[in-house]
C-alpha cells in the first residue's frame, strides 16, 4: 500500500495529495494511506482548558505561523486575487449571518416531545415503546402544570408535551 504524509495545514498540498491518492486508488485498485499532519488549536470542548496539558505559547505560535486559513489567504494575496478590504467585508458579513442564524435558532421551539420515542426503530412502533410513551403522556397530563421543573421545561417543546398519547 502506498503511503504519503502531507502538510495538513497547506490546503493546496492536501488537495494535490488527495488527487494523486485517488488516481492511484482508481487506476491501480489499491488503497493509499494519506496522513495529513495538522494541529488542534482550539480546546477539546467549551469546557476544556488545554493549557493544563500543553503550553499556551505552543498554541499561540501555531495560530500565528501555521494557520491554514491564514496561509491560504496569503497565497491568494500573492496572486492578487484577494485583498484586506475584501477580507474585512467577508468577515463582517459572515459574522452577521451567523449571529442572525443563531438568534433565529434560539427562538425556535424544540421538536414535539413525542419525538423522543421516534426513530428508535423503523417500521411499526414496538408495544413497549407505545406503552411507555402513553405512560409519560399520562404523567405529563397529571403533573405538567403542578410540578415546577416540568412546567418550565414543557413550554420549550412545540407540542408542550401534549401529543404523547
Amino acid at each position, binding site marked *: 500500500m502506498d503511503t504519503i504524509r502531507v502538510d495538513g495545514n497547506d490546503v493546496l498540498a492536501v488537495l494535490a495529495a488527495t488527487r494523486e491518492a485517488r488516481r492511484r486508488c482508481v487506476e491501480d485498485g489499491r488503497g493509499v494511506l494519506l496522513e495529513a499532519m495538522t494541529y488542534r488549536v482550539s480546546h477539546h470542548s467549551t469546557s476544556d*482548558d488545554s493549557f493544563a496539558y500543553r503550553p499556551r505559547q505552543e498554541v499561540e505560535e501555531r495560530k500565528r505561523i501555521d494557520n491554514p486559513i491564514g496561509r491560504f489567504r496569503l497565497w491568494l494575496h500573492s496572486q492578487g486575487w484577494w485583498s484586506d478590504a475584501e477580507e474585512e467585508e467577508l468577515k463582517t458579513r459572515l459574522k452577521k449571518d451567523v449571529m442572525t442564524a443563531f438568534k433565529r435558532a434560539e427562538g425556535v421551539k424544540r421538536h414535539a416531545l413525542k419525538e423522543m420515542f421516534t426513530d428508535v426503530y423503523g417500521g411499526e412502533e414496538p408495544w413497549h415503546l407505545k406503552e411507555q410513551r402513553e405512560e409519560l403522556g399520562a404523567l405529563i397530563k397529571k403533573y405538567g402544570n*403542578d410540578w*415546577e421543573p416540568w412546567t418550565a421545561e414543557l413550554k420549550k417543546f412545540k407540542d408542550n408535551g401534549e401529543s404523547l398519547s
Partner: protein
Amino acid sequence: MFTSQSSAAARIAKRRLLRSSTARRVARRAVSTQVEPPPAGGHLPGIATSKFLRTTRDAALRTPGITWRDDEHGAPVREIIGGRETRKMNVYQAVRDAMSIALMKDDTAVVFGEDVAFGGVFRCTMGLAEEFGRERVFNTPLSEQGIAGFGIGLAAMGQTAIAEIQFADYIFPAFDQLVNEAAKYRYRSGGQFNVGGLTVRTPTMSVGHGGLYHSQSPEGFFMGAAGLKIVIPRSPIQAKGLLLSSIRDPNPVIFMEPKILYRSAGTYGFMASSEAFPLTCIGNVVEQVPIDDFELPIGRAETLTTGTDLTLLTWGTPVYHCETALSMLANPPPSLAKHVPASLRSAKVELIDLRTILPWDVETVLESVKKTGRLVVVHEACRTAGVGAEIAAEVQKKAFLKLNAPVRRVTAWDVPTGLQYEKFVIPDAIRILDSIVETLAY
C-alpha cells in the same frame, strides 16, 4: 534532597492552585453565559440538605458496616474510633483518597486509563502521578478494549490493576474483554488463575446535559456476566470504603461512580483535560470522610430510612431523588397536594440503597418487602431487562404471598437519552412520588 523535594512540592501545589483558579474563572464565565436552570427538584428539600450525608466527624466514624484497615491486610481489626480523623471531601476527592491508600499500601498497585496522569477528566487521579510516579499512574491510548485487556494481564500476573474507563458509555469496546476474559478467568482455569486484582472504575449515570453518549447506566449489561461484581456508591464515604473493598475483593469488580455526584458546589464544574466535561451538580455531596484506611461491605445494601408500608429500592444518583420524593410524600407542596391523598402522607417508606448490583443483597431486600408488602425499584437505566427486572422476578418468586401490589419500576424509557428530552427520560422525584402513591393506593 530536602530542598528539591519541597520545591517540587511547591511547584505542584502552585500548579494545582493555578488550575483551580483557572477552573473557577472558567466556571464563573460558564455560569454567567448560561441561563440558570431551576433547581433540580424545584425549591424543595433535595440533595442540598440530604440527611443521608454524614457531615460530622462522629457520624462519619459511625458509618454502618465500616471496617478499619489500619495494618497490613489480614491483621486483626481495631474497632476503636477515638483519635481517628476525618476530612471534608466530595466524591472525587474520596475516590482519589481511596486510590492513594491503595497505591501507598500495596506496592503492586497501578492506576491507568485515558488522561489519568493529568488528573482525569473528573479529577479523581489529581496529583497521583506526581505522588507515586509515572510508572504506577499512567495514561493509556484511547482504547477501552486495550485498557481492560491490559488490566486483565496485570491482574493475572498478581498485580493490583485499577483501570479507569473515562465514561461508562465508552465501556462497550471493552465488553468482550470484561465478559469473556475477566469474568471467566477463574472458572476456565479451574481456580488456578484469577484476575481478582482488577478493578475497573467508570463514571456513570446522567448529568442533565450529557446526550446520548454521556448519560448511560450500563450496570444491567454486566449483570449476566457471572464472575464480575458491580458496585455503585452514593456518597464520598461510600465511594472510599466501597472502592477500597472493590480493589481488595478477590474478584474483578466494575466500580461505577455516579458522575453528577463528583463535585460539591452547585455550579458548573470544569476539568482540564482532553475529554473535559462540565457538570451541573444537584447539590452539596460532601461528607466528613475518615482519613484512615477503611472498607465498606460489598454485597450488602444499606437501609437509609426504615418503614413498614413500602420498600423503595435504588442506587447511585436516584437515592437523592427518592429522598426528595419521600419528603414530598410527607409534606407535599401546595401545587402537588391534590395528588397525595392525606391518608398516605403518614406512610412509612423504607428506602434502601442497593450499593452492590451484583451479587445484590437479596436478603435485605426480601426482609424489607416481606415487612412492607410493596416494592418500587428506581434506576436510571432503561426499563427493559434493566436491573429492576431481575430484582422484581426474584422478589415475586420469594415473597409472592406477601406482596400487596405489583412491583413497580421507575426507570428511563427504552430510548436513548436525547439532549433535549433528558428531563423527561431520566426518572425524577415526581415520577418516584407518583409510583409510591400508586403502589400505596393499589
